């Protein structure tokens, strides 16, 4: 079953959640992920079950501020609480640097593809 919801496709920042199953979600972040984008995504995020495995695609992010990082962190923490985890796909210098400075890299694994990320998350879950 797939269930896709786009909060904003025009310009600025958008967040798209694809639900693979009740435990697994693919989150695609595009554009400027800032307070405005996170607030727009709020309703889409709120009524969601807490996923155990979250793969976040970050390759198309053009800007990320602390609120955007907060979004990544909250997804990762929620997944960890359910003995799962979050993986980043399409890592780029801008995102990598922000997470490194904030010391938040340990919250995420990275992978080259969505499928590889899912495999690694499921293999390491417990």
């Amino acid at each position: 079953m797939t269930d896709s919801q786009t909060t904003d496709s025009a310009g600025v920042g958008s967040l798209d959640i694809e639900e693979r199953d009740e435990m697994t979600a693919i989150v695609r972040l595009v554009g400027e992920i800032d307070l405005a984008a996170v607030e727009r995504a709020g309703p889409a995020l709120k009524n969601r079950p807490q996923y155990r495995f979250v793969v976040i695609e970050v390759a198309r992010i053009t800007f990320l501020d602390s609120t955007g990082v907060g979004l990544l962190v909250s997804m990762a923490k929620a997944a960890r609480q359910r003995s799962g985890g979050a993986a980043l796909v399409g890592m780029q210098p801008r995102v990598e640097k922000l997470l490194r400075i904030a010391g938040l890299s340990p919250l995420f694994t990275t992978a080259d593809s969505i499928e590889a990320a899912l495999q690694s998350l499921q293999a390491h879950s417990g």
Partner: protein
Amino acid sequence: MPDTWIARSTWRWLRETSTLGVVITNNDLLVQGWNRWMEERSDLTAAEVQGRSLLDIYPHLASATRTSYEAALRGESRLLAQRFHRNMFPMQAPSLSPQRQMEQKVVIAPLWDGDQILGTITVIDDVTRRVLQEEMLQKQIDELEQVRAELDRSGRDLAVALAYERDLVQVFVRSLLQDCPNDARFDLACRYYPAYTQEHIGGDFYDFVRFGDGAMGVVIGDVCGKGMRAAVYTAMAKYTFRAFALEDAAPAAVMMRLNRCLYQQIVEAGMFMSFTYVFVDIAQGRLRWANAGHPAAVLVDPRGQTEYLTATGPVIGAFEDVSFREGSASFEPGSVLALYTDGVTEADRREEEGERVVEQVVRQNSGLGADGIADLLHEYAEVASRGQLRDDIAIVVVRYPEDRS
């Protein structure tokens, strides 16, 4: 009465029609024709009313109806609309529940034969359903109007509440920022500029702590998120920090305790804050610092060498138990330390090397004094954001004057 074949056939048709009531009278208003529609709705058969005066059958006819018959006998036609004339011919509207009086549209007209008036024709249209629909529509319009008025009111209330919150946040944020301490040994400048859009205010702060032995602590922080929620966490962070800083001079230890304390206070999963705490020990000519995930402050020495006060631990509030390393550097006459929040380095969202720009500004203008450097950093952010800061910015510049005589 009708004596031509046209009149006869027309009357036959009118008599059978079920959509309109038709009454024919002679000049004395004695009934000559009473169609089926009239029979069904008046409970009077054509035979019962034949030859009777219309005014006998309906003794309570409204005056407008009566005068219309007088007008008809003078040769004038009248249309009596339900809107202005209620219950002209008292009847029940059929097949309506609950029962109600029939709403009517009535035409009263003379019947001519050449230039001679032979009598009157009355045509009655039952418009009850139409009136009911209009009433229902009007009721819906009224209800919608009420809803709209309520929305208007609550919209105004919401706008007032939002404006109130923004004012509150601004006042609160300002109260968290103080003027630079007056300390002749340092050249100090601090700045705070709110985001261009008021919704984005809150979260940046700085503070100074002064110790008995003459040392000074400087802290700058950024709480993620905006608005009242961020402002409340900012206040919590500021005063918690103060309490720990005054107790123990070691920045790494202060940061660890701060994290442990705030971690328990933070309820939102994604909430965290970045901090840089610099302990300025002027007697030793040294800076000791701890940086919790905050953009690296820039330290330029008198020879123009730059050192970045990079992170020595993760952001506060993300992990339950973490330790911080402590950094240290020499701080001598002519040294300049510039602390800032990411609103400065990210003012231009396409710029990935914001720290380099800050470093250049500080290094190339270290002779300007703390105020001059702070103003230049602010100017850079304004220009880089095209005059529309999308995030708050906070700047603290500490310069060790060369000549202290």
